[in-house]
């Protein structure tokens, strides 16, 4: 991928409200797509990933994301957030190219703050 853009650096939301964290990428080839989450004072962990098949992917903690190839997007959604969802969320892309160079390209992250 040439780049991964997370359109919102910060997203404040009230508890039990829905949320969407946006991610767009640019690439001329097929891709794998990932969302990672970093809770306060914890390490990064995988939230969900799209490899192939159904474009709607379900992850941990009630999150889901939809791959839209025509719009080159992989937006993350949750219908009702909890205080515990407060964290930094990172979108990442891996291009399907021949050879051994498959490192991830990372977005800058979106800080989700869930308020009571």
């Amino acid at each position, binding site marked *: 991928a040439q780049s991964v853009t997370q359109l919102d650096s910060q997203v404040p939301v009230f508890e039990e409200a829905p949320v969407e964290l946006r991610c767009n990428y640019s690439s001329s080839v097929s891709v*794998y797509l*990932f969302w*990672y989450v970093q809770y306060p004072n*914890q*390490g*990064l*962990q*995988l939230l969900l*990933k799209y*490899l192939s098949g159904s474009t709607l992917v379900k992850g941990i903690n009630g999150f889901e994301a939809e791959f839209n190839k025509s719009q080159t997007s992989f937006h993350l959604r949750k219908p009702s957030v909890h205080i515990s969802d407060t964290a930094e969320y*990172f979108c990442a892309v*891996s*291009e*399907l190219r021949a050879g*051994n*160079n*498959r*490192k*991830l390209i*990372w*977005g*800058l*992250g979106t800080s989700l703050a869930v308020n009571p």
Partner: protein
Amino acid sequence: GAGVSQSPSNKVTEKGKDVELRCDPISGHTALYWYRQSLGQGLEFLIYFQGNSAPDKSGLPSDRFSAERTGGSVSTLTIQRTQQEDSAVYLCASSSGLAGAETQYFGPGTRLLVL
């Protein structure tokens, strides 16, 4: 342990000194990555190792940075003549391969402060 471990968890050093950061990947993982995370920034790729292949060093910001991976397991990231701009959290991750689909498992990071 079952996860990726890093040491030290925190390191404070003086400008100009050398530092070594250590990463123990998950046993059996062939791919190992180093990233740098600065305040308010995303993950900056530094280097990765895959099995016995030559490492991809394309992300190292200067020749003061180097890394080794001994025996296909433990890795050490060395920063020589540290500068204040090197202050950041250094993250290590490992995965079971490098086909691009594998999940990366991250360690807790080493927080480096250069005074």
